[in-house]
């Protein structure tokens, strides 16, 4: 027994030296107005982006709502009060008055940054078949494969651009799934959102490639408040992937994004996230505060929205990608892996609201806690009165590695329909010593064995990711465990 413990401790120790390889800073001049949140800055953002007046009004009214609201406090999270006046709400690489027309106009330093991150912007080098929109601090810097998508009538651009070019779609759908007054973070985002992606897939078009946005926070003390809106018109399909990184900094940085998805009749949206914001160091210093609201509306019959997330980064994660299953026969899915290490805290899960008949939802959540971290699954499944024959299946498993971390499961299950069926299973256990022994007897090191077993534990979720990213995600899982391997 004694030997096991010391070995395990050694391995744990090596985990905690987690190296965050995306932690570099790009030395680039940026344009920033003063810190602080007030009507002036909102007007500044709006005018920078040349927005119509209704949108400025929308922002200001969101801001007024925000002023009256308190942060939601029910999550299992502990962090010092956020000083909203000590944050920059807008930061753009200098000389970015207009979005560059092509890559030759982009600062070479930026291109280099993305190369370093493994996201080459030159189209020919882009992962085959993936179109990428890149958001650097507050602005979108490049969208690849645009031409090809336009031929199909697909709109894939920054939300700023969409506001200029597709005002009707924006007016109709912005805030339609997440009303600004929903809670304080959605109000905040609605007031100060800077950039993000916009996607519209026309009727009966199956988007032939993965659409991907890559978010990066570079500037110090800068909040990132992106807003993403995806509309899949009748009979269409799109798979969308989001990645994120940030430099290592001693201060905490705020990220409060809003993502709205709308699937009309027979449409399907698959949304995958690999969240790898800077998690802070071994002592819990620094790291991103990630307060994200993601919500999808299955508006039409037979529509489907599927969320897959691999959450390894951020000091604090507060995130519940949800589905409102309004259309009859619509389907919502949530697949999640959340790994917390050192002093990270994650409170994440989903909300499935069954409104329509015959709606189905599935939740698979895998939580892994290491170090001194706290990892909470929080999920709500509701069957409303009219949701005849609705079904939900939920499985949430937690794995504990080390005895100073915590794993928590908090499901809310509410049924108001007597033909609907809910099934929920959850388990918590430590990593299985017999499995470790077996792998090591075959010659794998303790670390390799842990990583293999944890990857196996997460497999149900990882296999939901688009092919190109599944491998990356697997590596990321291993890195979050090992640190030294990265």
């Amino acid at each position, binding site marked *: 027994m004694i030997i096991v413990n010391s070995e395990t401790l050694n391995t744990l120790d090596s985990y905690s030296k987690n190296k965050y390889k995306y932690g570099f800073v790009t030395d680039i001049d940026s344009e920033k107005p003063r810190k602080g949140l007030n009507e002036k800055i909102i007007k500044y953002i709006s005018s920078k982006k040349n927005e119509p007046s209704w949108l400025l009004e929308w922002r200001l009214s969101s801001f007024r709502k925000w002023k009256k609201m308190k942060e939601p406090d029910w999550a299992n999270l502990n962090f010092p009060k956020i000083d909203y006046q000590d944050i920059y709400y807008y930061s753009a690489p200098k000389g970015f008055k207009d979005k560059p027309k092509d890559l030759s106009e982009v600062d070479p330093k930026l291109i280099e940054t993305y190369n370093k991150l493994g996201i080459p912007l030159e189209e020919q080098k882009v992962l085959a078949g993936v179109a990428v929109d890149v958001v650097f601090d507050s602005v979108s810097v490049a969208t690849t494969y645009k031409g090809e998508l336009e031929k199909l009538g697909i709109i894939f651009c920054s939300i700023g651009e969409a506001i200029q070019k597709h005002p009707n779609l924006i007016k109709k759908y912005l805030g339609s799934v997440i009303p600004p007054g929903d809670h304080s973070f959605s109000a905040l985002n609605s007031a100060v959102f800077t950039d993000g992606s916009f996607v519209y897939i026309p009727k009966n078009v199956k988007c032939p490639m993965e659409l991907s946005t890559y978010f990066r926070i570079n500037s110090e003390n800068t909040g990132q408040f992106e807003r993403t809106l995806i509309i899949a018109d009748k009979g269409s399909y799109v798979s969308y992937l989001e990645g994120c990184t940030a430099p290592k900094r001693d201060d905490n940085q705020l990220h409060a994004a809003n993502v709205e998805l709308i699937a009309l009749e027979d449409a399907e949206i698959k949304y995958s996230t690999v969240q790898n914001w800077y998690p802070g160091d071994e002592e819990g210093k620094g790291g991103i505060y990630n307060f994200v609201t993601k919500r999808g509306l299955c508006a039409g019959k037979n529509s489907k929205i599927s969320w897959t997330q691999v959450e390894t980064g951020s000091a604090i994660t507060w995130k519940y990608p949800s589905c409102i299953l309004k259309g009859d026969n619509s389907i919502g899915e949530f697949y999640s892996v959340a790994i917390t290490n050192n002093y990270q805290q994650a409170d994440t899960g989903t909300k499935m609201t069954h409104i329509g008949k015959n709606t189905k939802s599935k939740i698979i959540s895998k939580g892994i806690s290491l170090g001194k971290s706290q990892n909470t699954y929080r999920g709500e499944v509701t069957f409303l009165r009219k949701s005849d024959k609705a079904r939900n299946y939920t499985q949430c498993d937690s794995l504990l590695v080390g005895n100073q971390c915590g794993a928590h*499961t908090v499901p809310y299950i509410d049924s108001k329909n007597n033909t609907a069926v809910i099934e929920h*299973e959850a388990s918590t256990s430590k990593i299985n010593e017999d499995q470790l022994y077996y792998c090591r007897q075959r010659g794998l090191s303790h670390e390799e064995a842990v990583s293999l077993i944890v990857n196996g534990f997460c497999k149900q979720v990882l296999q939901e990711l688009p092919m190109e990213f599944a491998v990356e995600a697997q590596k990321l899982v291993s890195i979050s465990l090992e640190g030294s391997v990265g």
Partner: protein
Amino acid sequence: MNILDNYQKNKKNIFFTENKDVQNYREKLLTIFENDRFDRKNNESLKNINLKNFFDFKYKYLVPEEISVINNYQDDNYSIVSINGQCSNFKDDKIEITKILDEDYNDFSKNNIIEKNDHFVNLNSLFLNSGFKIVIKKNNNIKIKISNIVTDDALTIFQKNNYFCEEGSSVSLIEEYENKNNSTSNILNVIKLEKNSKFNHFLIQDNSPNHNLIITSHSSCKKASTYNQKVYNFSEGYVRNFHYSKLLETNSEADLQGIFFLKDNNTSNNKTFVKHLAGECKSNQVYKGILNDRAKATYFSNTHVDQVAQKTEGYQLSKGILLSDNASYFSKPELKIYADDVKCSHGSTIGPIDENAIFYLRSRGMSKIAATKMLISSFINEELSSIDDEQMFQTIQKKLVRYLSKVK
């Protein structure tokens, strides 16, 4: 009438008013009530509660005229009739029954951290007007039956009972609540188990529609002791079962189980909470409910495993069957785990009676209604078949038949 007025007016009739500490504690509770927003969404003790019914009441209590009877028939069988929460003193070499003392009361209010937000327990502490203490003496093995009688209409009974199981003792307690008046009983049981003791606690609840029953229990187990609780709720009036267990020392166990049968407009709120504070303990929390008509139920369960509680085994199961369009069931099975060498799990299902099973039975010639009844019985078969007391089994069987006769 509001809480403060009730308190001011009836202060002199409430227990331990003369005790300074108690008075201070109650002052504090009063300010909690005054400042609380009564958030029904986030406060588990308030979910599905008709606030007006419970927090805007008229205090009324009658000291029972007749003294309750304690019978020691056969050797180890005791039968107690508690009237309006009171019971006469009794003592032999196996048990000792006394009126509740202010030290028993104090002891609880000092450790009452877990329930800051439980307004019903706070009401109980504020208006305490009855209760008793039972000590089961060392190494004895006894059976007790308590009939809880409320004598009049519109009474508000705030009762606190203390049970103390000395080392190596073993007790089986069957409590019956069958009242037909529109009173409200708010009962708090505090149960302490010493080393190697065992407590099998059965609560049979069957009140009429306007009788409200609020039961809260706090059990705590020392080394190798076991607390088993089974709740059978057939009441047509409101019942709240909130049961907390603390496993303080190694090899102790808590098993909190319940079944409830609801119909009409009835509501039942249930909660079980096990705190593992030492290693190598086991816990089990299983609730099953059947809801008909416009009935509503909530079930909160929680397994909390402290950092030192290695080798914990914790299990939770919650099952609900909705028989009608308008019934609703909310469940929240929580795991909070701070130790790594644990095996904890929970399962939860809510749904109608299995259609395939109904179809199967009908294809064998059974009517739909008979099939439904049979499947309801089988749903709780485990809970029924585990009752070894023949008389109790018959009692419960009868109540089940009565409930099923209303199922259409």
